[in-house]
Structures are given as structure tokens and as C-alpha cells.
């Protein structure tokens, strides 16, 4: 929306341009407000409970579980320990799928970047494949795989890996597009194979960027893995679902799980924030 006036001969031109711009902005704002208002009303109408009724009760449930947790606060440390293995499972799912996703995305990114690809004809094919992998929500793959493989962490892991590959592949390939080709060309002149050119010429250049994206993905994957647990593939999400279904009497467990999830996400968030700042700014010289 920041248009630089190209060539203006007279103030009248400028005034007309400004008027038109203002008109366009006005129209966009009106459309946006109309969309928001009608969308809100539609969502409100199709929701089981209305917004106005619900807003007064937002704190009912937190108050209920917190009061129960406060009453039985002595149980909390025990529950925190009890759910630690599930939390580790959730983290493992996220870590392994980030790892596999990063590796697969690295390969796919190199195959789908013009100028680097081993088989240039396959570039659009690999790109489409990554688009599809990115577009399929994890829950779809996870639920289908649960039907095939039974419940457990593996369906969630595969689902998150697939999605991570697609999402990271796109970012990786954008980073690789900006890589300097000279090292790879230099290696080529020594008779290096494609693999050697990539490994010694391109990967060192993109490694900081790629690892930064992978760290961000790890954060996202922890959340995804917790959610997938809720639909039946193990980890802390599954414990949360069980505790919630039990209802009153197990709210102290619910609070313990909320605390664990919140702490984990916040800590990983802060750590990866710091690591990413180092990778992108302070890390290797460009």
C-alpha cells in the first residue's frame, strides 16, 4: 500500500491520485468490516452456544479446575511426575518428525531449486508434491494411519513428518535459491559429483537458515503432537483427553497437564528464539 508517485506533472494529478487511493482504501475497509461483521454473526448463529451467553462463562471452567487443583494442591507435584513420560513421548514425536522432516525437506529442496536440481525436469513435480504434503492437515494422515497401524506414537510421527517435509521444503528451497552458486561451480570444476557439490558447496551456506527454520518447526510440531495425542495417538494429549472425559475429580490432573504443556512450550519457545537469533545474526559469517 506504499505507492511511490511515479511521475507527477501537476498538483492536480497528485490530488486526483490521492483521492482515488483514498477511495480504494475506503472500499477495502468497508468490505473488510462487512466481512468481519457478517462472519461474526454467521459463526455466532452456527455455534451451539452464542457469543454473548458464552463470554460470561469463559472463566467458569478455569475457575472450576483451578479451585479443585488448589484444594488438592498436594497432588500436583505427583501428577507432574506422573505425566512426565507422556510429555517426553510428545516431545519425542515432535523431535523425530522434525528430524526426519528436515532431512527429507533438505533433499526435496535441493531437487526443487532451479539451478541446483539434479534433474531440472523434476523441479515442478517435486514442488507440487511438497505443496500437497503441506496442504494435508496432520490430523487427516494421523487418523487414517491410526486405523491402519493402531493407536500409538508412530501414526502421529509419520503425519507430522509429512507435513513438516512439505512446509520446510518450501522454506528451504527459498533459502537455497539465494545461495551463491560459485562454490558449487568451483567444486564442479574439480570434477565433484552432484552430491559433493551440494554437500560442500551449498549446504554450508544454507545451514544456518535451514537450522533456524527447523527449530521453529520443532516448536510448531510440539503443539501439533500434543493435539494429535488428543485424537488418539499417545503422548500428553491423550492423557488430557482421558482426564477431561473423567470430568470432576480429575481436574487436578487437567491442571497438571496444562502446566506441563505451558511450561514446555514456553521454555522451548524461549530457547529456540535465542538459538535462532544466534544462528541468523551472530552465527557464521555470510
Amino acid at each position: 500500500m506504499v505507492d511511490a508517485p511515479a511521475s507527477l506533472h501537476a498538483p492536480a494529478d497528485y490530488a486526483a491520485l490521492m483521492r482515488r487511493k483514498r477511495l480504494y482504501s475506503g472500499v477495502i475497509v468497508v468490505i473488510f468490516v462487512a466481512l468481519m461483521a457478517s462472519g461474526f454473526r454467521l459463526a455466532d448463529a452456527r455455534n451451539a452456544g452464542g457469543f454473548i451467553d458464552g463470554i460470561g462463562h469463559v472463566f467458569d471452567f478455569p475457575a472450576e479446575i483451578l479451585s479443585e487443583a488448589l484444594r488438592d494442591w498436594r497432588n500436583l507435584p505427583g501428577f507432574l511426575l506422573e505425566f512426565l513420560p507422556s510429555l517426553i513421548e510428545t516431545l519425542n514425536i515432535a523431535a523425530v518428525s522434525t528430524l526426519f522432516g528436515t532431512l527429507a525437506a533438505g533433499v526435496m529442496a535441493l531437487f526443487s531449486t532451479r539451478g541446483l536440481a539434479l534433474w531440472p525436469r523434476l523441479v515442478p513435480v517435486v514442488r507440487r508434491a511438497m505443496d500437497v504434503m503441506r496442504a494435508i492437515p496432520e490430523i487427516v494422515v494421523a487418523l487414517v494411519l491410526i486405523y491402519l497401524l493402531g493407536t500409538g506414537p508412530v501414526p502421529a510421527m509419520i503425519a507430522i513428518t509429512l507435513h513438516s517435509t512439505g512446509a520446510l521444503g518450501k522454506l528451504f528451497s527459498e533459502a537455497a535459491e539465494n545461495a551463491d552458486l560459485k562454490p558449487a561451480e568451483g567444486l564442479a570444476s574439480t570434477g565433484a559429483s552432484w552430491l559433493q557439490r551440494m554437500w560442500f558447496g551449498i549446504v554450508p551456506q544454507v545451514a544456518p537458515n535451514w537450522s533456524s527454520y527447523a527449530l521453529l518447526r520443532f516448536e510448531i510440531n510440539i503443539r501439533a503432537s500434543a493435539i494429535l495425542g488428543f485424537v488418539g495417538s499417545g503422548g500428553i494429549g491423550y492423557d488430557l483427553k482421558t482426564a477431561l472425559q473423567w470430568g470432576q475429580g480429575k481436574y487436578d490432573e487437567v491442571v497438571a497437564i496444562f502446566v506441563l504443556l505451558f511450561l514446555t512450550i514456553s521454555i522451548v519457545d524461549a530457547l529456540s528464539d535465542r538459538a535462532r537469533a544466534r544462528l541468523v545474526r551472530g552465527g557464521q559469517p555470510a
Partner: protein
Amino acid sequence: MSTTLTPAAAAPADPALRARVHGAMTRRRRLALALPVLLLAYLAYVFVAFDVAGIASRARPENAATLLNDFWSHKTHVTRDNRSDTLQVAIEGENKGTYPDGQTPAWVHTGPTSDGPTADGTTAGGETVIDLPDGSRITYGRDISALIERPDFGTIRVARVGRDITLELPPGAALPDWISASARRVNVTGPGWRFSMTNARTETFRYAPGWELFFFTLESPFAGRSLPDLVALALWEPRLDPARPNLAGMADDFWNNRMWRHGDVVWALGETVLMAFLGTMGAGLIALPLAFLAASNFAPARLIRLALRRMFDFFRGVDGLIWTVILSRAFGPGPMTGALAILMTDTGTFGKTFSEALENIDTRQVEGVGATGANALQRARFGVMPQVAPVILSQLLYYLESNTRSATVIGALVGGGIGLLLTQAINTQKDWEEVCYYIVLIVGMVMAMDSLSGWLRRRFIKG
């Protein structure tokens, strides 16, 4: 890492430097070796922790076969109830796909019946002949028996004698592996069909490619017609149903198709996009003013800034899953709950990124606007907003696309949108063609949102 050094460089003058370089190289080499080993060790641990070996025993390959078949084909059940002696032809064995009174597909011939169709719409008595795609033919006899004629094998007779099911093969034939027989049940499988007889029922499944009744269900007068036929009906042929024009009838029957529920599906997709839109944009509207208060160069007080920062961290840290659980208690299932859950998490994210963008602006532009005597609001509007608008807009659009996907998942949790339909279809464990349909729609929806957000980004944020 073999580096060929020129003779001049091979002998560095400074031995200390040489030692340092060597030390660094050794460390690097050790690291290069240690990393893969560590990774392998971790993967081995996960292999055990996830019980990957046990997957093999828990996996159900027959489920995979069902699923793959159902994704692209459907089956028609021709069932005779051996107790009441009635015949029913139903697509996928579903109520919604049952052929009405005495009507059958062309490949099922019902012989002369003794007493005609019964009151409940099923056909009684008589002989039933079923033609199968490979040239085989199954005849349900008047007594409780069936003849299966396979051109390459001969005639097999299956009958109920007393409480047992008996099997008679053609003379001299050995039991082939496509027949399984016990006293309770006989199963015969052929290319594109399956037959089974138990005490209770005689049943034949005939498989056909494609999704059954995708456009019209059997009760619609347009069911089973060819495309040219439908075009002719829509454009010039007389009304099939005098009450409504053919084209309107088609649209109506398609929209209200009971098997595929196209109308509901479109609504569900709309709800999902609505959740993403309301959540993202609402979060943006809330986060923008807060971001000003949380940016170090605009914050009125350090305390407010720190408090807001912590609040953003809290909103982000409380995962979408937790917000979903809490909010669905207050608002019940539906798109509003999903939108609010997205809004909560994203307010935290946007607050953080927007305030970072605000901290990185160029102050000279603001000073310039201030020099004309502009007040704080005007300085923000004309000095700051033009600088941060591209960042904010691109963030909003990026999240709009990514939240469309999240809204599918959240919909599955809160019970709204296409996510709900998908989980319902998967939980029935048999409507896999519907699952496939929803997956295709979801992927299409996400890709469409991706293109839309990319297009808007290019349109509004020109380099």
C-alpha cells in the same frame, strides 16, 4: 575434508598458528563424527520407546486393502435374508442406497415371483440371477441355496442344510484358495465380486469403480442417467417432476444428496474458512494496538511494556489445544469456539511480531511527520503505519493460510467445520470414499487459500 595446500602454504611460519588450525580441524572432525553417532543413538532409543517393532503385529493390512478399495470404488450388496426369504439390493449396504420396490440394477434379474413384492419394499421368493463382471453368474435358488457358475472353474453349489452350510464343488475339482468354507460360513471370492452364505443371509458384493451415487441418490428421478441425457433433460425435455423445472430439480437433488450431503459439506468448508478468517483478523485487530503499547519505542511505561510482553508469551504458551478445551466449555461446539481459539493463540504471536516490527522502524519518518505539528495518533498513522503495514499484512495473510489448516484440526476437536465431518467419517471406519472426498476438498481448500493469500500479498505489498 582434504585440502591440498600449495607448497608455500604447507609450512606456515608460525607453529602456534599451525597447532591452532590443526586443533580446530581435529575438533571439527570429531564433531562431524559424533553428531551422526548421537543421532543414531537417539533414533535407536526412539525406536524402542515408540515400540516400532510392535507395529508389525498391531498393523492391520486388511484394513489397508479395504481403505484403498473404498477410496476409488464401491460395492453393491445383493442380500437375501435366509430367515424371512426377502431380497434387498443396496449400494454399500446402506439404507440410503437401497433400491426401491422391486427395482434392481440391470445385472440383477429377479425371476417370476410367487407372491410379488412384499409390503416392505423388498422382493420375496423367486429366483435371483446376478451377472458378475468376469462372466460369472450367481443364482439364488428358491430354497436356501446358491449356484455359482465360474466360466473357468465350473458350477459350485452352496446350500443350507439344517443349520449347516454345505459346499459342492464341480466333480473332480480341489478346493481352490479363493473359497473358504466351514460349517457356519462359505466365502467365495472372484475378480470384482465376493459371495458369502451364512445361516442368516446369502450375500453377494459386486465391486464397481467410482464413487456411488455421487450426484443423485436412487430416490431422485435423475439417478443413473448419462450426461447427455441429463443435459437434454435440463435444457429441453419435459419435466420429470411437474412441480419443478428439471434444472432446479437436479440442483436440489444434488445439494440435498443424502449419501454425500454436498450442501452440508460446502457449509462445513465455509465454516472452516470462517474460523480461520475471524480468528486471524480478530487477533490482528486486537494485537495491533497492544503491540504499540508493548514496543520499547512507543510504550508509555516500562511496566506496561513488560506486562504486555509476558501476556503475549502466556497467550502463545497456552497452546491452541488448551484454549480449545477451555473455550468449548463456555461456547459449546461450533465455528465461534474455533475462531476464538485461533484468536487467542494468534493474539500472542501477532503481539510479539508486530511489536518487534514497530521497534525496528526508521524514526526519521516519524520525526518528519511530527515536524509538521502532527499529534501522536497522526504520527502513528502517517509516520509508523506505512512502514509496518507490509510486515503486518504479510504476517496476517501468511497466518490466514496456515490457520485454514489449523481450523480443520480445531474443528475436529471443537466439533465444527470440515474437521468434524472428517473425524465422523473416519470413526465409522467404513465410509472411506467420503474420507477420500473430504481429503481432496481439504487439500483443495488449503491450496486455494495459499494461492489467495499469495495473490493478496503480491497485490498489496509490491516490493
